[in-house]
């Protein structure tokens, strides 16, 4: 079968305008009769629900957290990109588009990325109008900073809490729609299946996590805004509850999964400290604006960082990539850290860490402050004190977080960091309208695969989540619903709801009846180890084949020996987690199959068989310039359907940051 990406005709920069000008509309009276289900309330879900509620649709939102405000978008630190060119440094829609396609190592769909760049400026305008308190300069105008993979300053931020402020803005807009009666909100609810009627998505089965009861909800359309699946690795920067379950249920009902193996490993995270570790904490990419990354030039150097003289330090990113230096894209920075540690130059007790050092920045800022205040004879200590104050204003909350976790003061000694799983570029395959291969079923934000190719640039996830929710889906969904205005709401006693609910109920009962010996957590940890070792920062054919076998074995063991305490009809977090881990195990197998199929390196996907002499990722455009879209055909059985990628504007070249 062919995938229809529905990319509009015409020149790249006119596609979206032209689409909007000709798309079908739904009149206000009909909007009131159309019901929409939004699963997930992060940036994509909350913004979509709010924008659709504003238009007059009847919306229901679902989240597993105790409030929409807690969705994991809240944890995004560094910023949000927009092609505003407020800095007069040469930015434009084209540059943002170009940087994103190149940053994604030419594995994203150009038309989607161009649209993303086009709507980016409106996002900032809207968020400011909502009262999002972005950082400002003394003149009262918005401030910008740099992020990786770009040479302009286009990132808007609110200290190290940009995701929090944007999510609270979207959540406010959502709560306003709840108050107006346009949105009904269901918290502590988990979607456990999509209900299909006549080949279209027409509702969901959700479980009330407080009392364990299954519920049926009808919708003319269903939007999955359920985030990424980085927790398949057990240890990641994701929240503990982040999971693939909603997307996976949709996949098993016919939605294809795009590029599942494309995982982003973030270069700057706090390293693992022991077996007890439950999650990893990111140290924002914004720190690379001012922090310098280095390791000792000597192997196994056990001196303290501050005792190692300048000449004996290897600032390996500045050495290897002079044009971008410490601000190379994430995939490049992560691999470079791994390379140094694998070669024996790592630091810290585990030797699996590199330094992120602010000493230079503190001195530089201190000198600027001294100059500003006209203190000609300030001593070294005064300069450092003032420099620390500047660094504190920029990154204070991150430094505090680092100190709480590690017990070390990063103002005095360099941070120790190491790459960790952070984001998944893969996700449900969607067309230009964000519709999956199931009619009426949409995927927004990190849950879809569409905009970031094989590597996402920093500060682009927030941009994409809000673009999809505020500015794309309100147009594209109307194009589908315009044909549905005569469809009355379908009562939830329809046989399709009966059937879906029975299946969900049976699966829960089977899980509870196993009563084996091993905990859910122990299975999750084992899955994570397989994935990290064999489908992590570097992948090869042998390892991936082994991983597939090991995961299959793990799945059999899970379904015969998992131990879940408690009852079905009560608050039972272990049961919730068991369902999610079961889905992660199946996803893990597909990720390895996808990684095995893609015998090239691109972005975050590094196949050891495919690298340049300098150890850089080597793409194979002749054979792999396509989106891998996987159709579920039964247990351990997937069919690959390729969506060819055509580059009209940005011609693929060997990506260089040197």
């Amino acid at each position: 079968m062919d995938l229809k990406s529905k990319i509009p005709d015409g020149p790249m920069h006119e596609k979206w305008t032209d689409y909007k000008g000709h798309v079908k509309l739904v009149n206000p009276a009909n909007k009131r009769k159309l019901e929409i289900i939004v699963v997930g309330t992060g940036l994509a879900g909350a913004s979509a629900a709010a924008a659709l509620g504003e238009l007059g649709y009847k919306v229901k939102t679902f989240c597993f957290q105790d409030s929409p405000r807690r969705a994991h978008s809240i944890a995004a630190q560094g910023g949000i990109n927009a092609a505003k060119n407020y800095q007069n440094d040469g930015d434009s829609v084209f540059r943002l588009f170009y940087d994103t396609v190149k940053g994604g190592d030419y594995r994203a769909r150009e038309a989607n990325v161009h649209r993303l760049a086009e709507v980016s400026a409106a996002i900032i305008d809207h968020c400011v109008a909502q009262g999002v308190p972005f950082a400002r300069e003394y003149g009262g105008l918005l401030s910008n900073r740099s992020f990786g993979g770009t040479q302009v300053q286009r990132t808007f931020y609110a200290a190290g809490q940009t995701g929090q402020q944007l999510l609270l803005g979207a959540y406010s807009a959502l709560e306003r729609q709840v108050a107006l009666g346009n949105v009904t909100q269901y918290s502590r609810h988990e979607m456990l299946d999509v209900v299909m009627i006549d080949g279209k998505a027409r509702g969901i089965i959700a479980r009330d996590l407080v009392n364990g009861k299954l519920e049926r909800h009808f919708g003319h359309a269903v939007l999955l805004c359920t985030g990424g699946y980085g927790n398949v690795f057990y240890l990641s920067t994701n929240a503990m509850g982040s999971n693939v379950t909603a997307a996976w249920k949709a996949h098993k009902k016919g939605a294809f999964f795009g590029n599942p193996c494309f995982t982003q490993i973030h270069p700057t995270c706090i390293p693992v400290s022991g077996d007890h570790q439950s999650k990893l904490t990111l140290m924002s990419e914004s720190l690379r604006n001012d922090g310098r990354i280095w390791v000792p030039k000597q192997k196994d150097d056990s001196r303290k960082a501050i005792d190692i003289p300048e000449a004996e330090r290897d600032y390996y990113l500045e050495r290897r990539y002079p044009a971008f230096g410490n601000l190379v894209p994430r995939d490049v920075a992560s691999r470079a850290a791994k390379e140094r540690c694998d070669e024996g130059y790592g630091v810290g007790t585990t030797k699996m860490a590199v330094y992120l050092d602010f000493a230079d920045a503190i001195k530089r800022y201190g000198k600027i402050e001294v100059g500003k205040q006209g203190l000609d004879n300030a001593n070294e200590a005064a300069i450092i004190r003032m420099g620390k104050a500047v660094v504190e204003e920029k990154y204070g909350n991150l430094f505090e977080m680092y100190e709480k976790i590690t017990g070390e003061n990063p103002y005095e000694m360099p941070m120790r960091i190491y790459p960790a799983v952070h984001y998944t570029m893969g996700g449900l395959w969607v067309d230009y309208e964000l519709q999956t291969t199931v009619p009426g079923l949409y995927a927004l934000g990190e849950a879809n695969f569409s905009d970031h190719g094989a590597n996402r640039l920093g500060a682009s996830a927030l941009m994409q989540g809000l673009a999809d929710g505020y500015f794309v889906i309100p147009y594209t969904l109307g194009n589908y619903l315009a044909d549905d205005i005569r469809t009355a709401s379908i009562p939830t006693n329809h046989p399709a709801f009966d059937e879906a609910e029975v299946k969900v109920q049976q699966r829960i009962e089977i899980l509870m009846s196993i009563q084996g010996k091993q905990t859910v957590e122990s299975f999750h940890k084992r899955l994570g180890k397989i994935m990290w070792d064999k489908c992590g920062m570097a992948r090869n054919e042998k390892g991936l084949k082994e991983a597939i076998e090991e995961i299959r074995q793990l799945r059999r063991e899970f379904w015969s020996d998992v131990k879940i305490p408690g009852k079905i009809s009560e608050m039972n977090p272990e049961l919730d987690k068991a369902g999610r881990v079961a889905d992660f195990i199946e996803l893990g197998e597909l990720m390895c199959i996808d990684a095995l199929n893609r015998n090239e390196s691109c972005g975050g996907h590094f196949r050891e068989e495919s690298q340049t002499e300098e150890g850089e990722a080597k793409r194979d455009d002749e054979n792999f310039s396509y989106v891998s879209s996987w159709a579920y055909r039964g247990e351990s059985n997937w069919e690959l359907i390729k969506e060819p990628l055509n580059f009209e504007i940005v011609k693929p070249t060997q990506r260089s940051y040197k």
Partner: protein
Amino acid sequence: MEHYNMNLTLKVWKQSNSREPGAFETYPVQNISSEMSFLEMFDVLNEQLIRDGKDPIAFDHDCREGICGTCSMYINGKAHGPWEKNTTCQLHMRAFKDGDTIVVEPWRAAAFPVIKDLMVDRSAFDRIMQAGGYISVNTGNAVDANSLPIDKKDADLSFMAASCIGCGACVAACKNSSAMLFVSAKVSQLALLPQGEPERESRVLNMVAQMDKEGFGNCTNTYACEAECPKGISVSNIARMNREYLKAGLSAD
């Protein structure tokens, strides 16, 4: 910093749901590393309880990096435990020493009923937000973001108020279970910005009315909320809200 291991005694509130009474149960935990987070220590305990066929302890948590506001334990008489400006998930075991007894309770407030063990229902906060915690601007209406400069001082104060994570520690810490710090943080964030001006009066009146309706207590200026707030939200926001409320009340028709 030296790493060490410790044995501890935990006294934890167990309650099967909102209808039944709860009680403390005692759990010994062994071999806890000083490098663990407080919630990782609970993970270790729960894994042990499940293996022993016992009921694990239900607690709310999600991001484990101090920003989502989900975690909510009242530890040794303090919301989020002994460290200042900190959430439970960021509390690390180096705050304790071998042989300590640690008492862990849920947030206690009439407006936050217990769901199970250490989990409480904080949906009252959502309803207060629905009463007015927003600026009424539909998508697509905004002017250019830089068309309205905002004094950096006000923008910074607004941001500081906006950094509230909605965890409810202020309510738990207050002897009256007052939600004034939470509500005043949102009122302040929006009152400090020109965009918040048109709804300035209705916002404060409606949010305070909803707060009272939810059953939160009155503020008697003990400042316990600020002392235990993980984000250091200042009580000056409460003073600002009181001024806003007074002004709005005087000019209301």
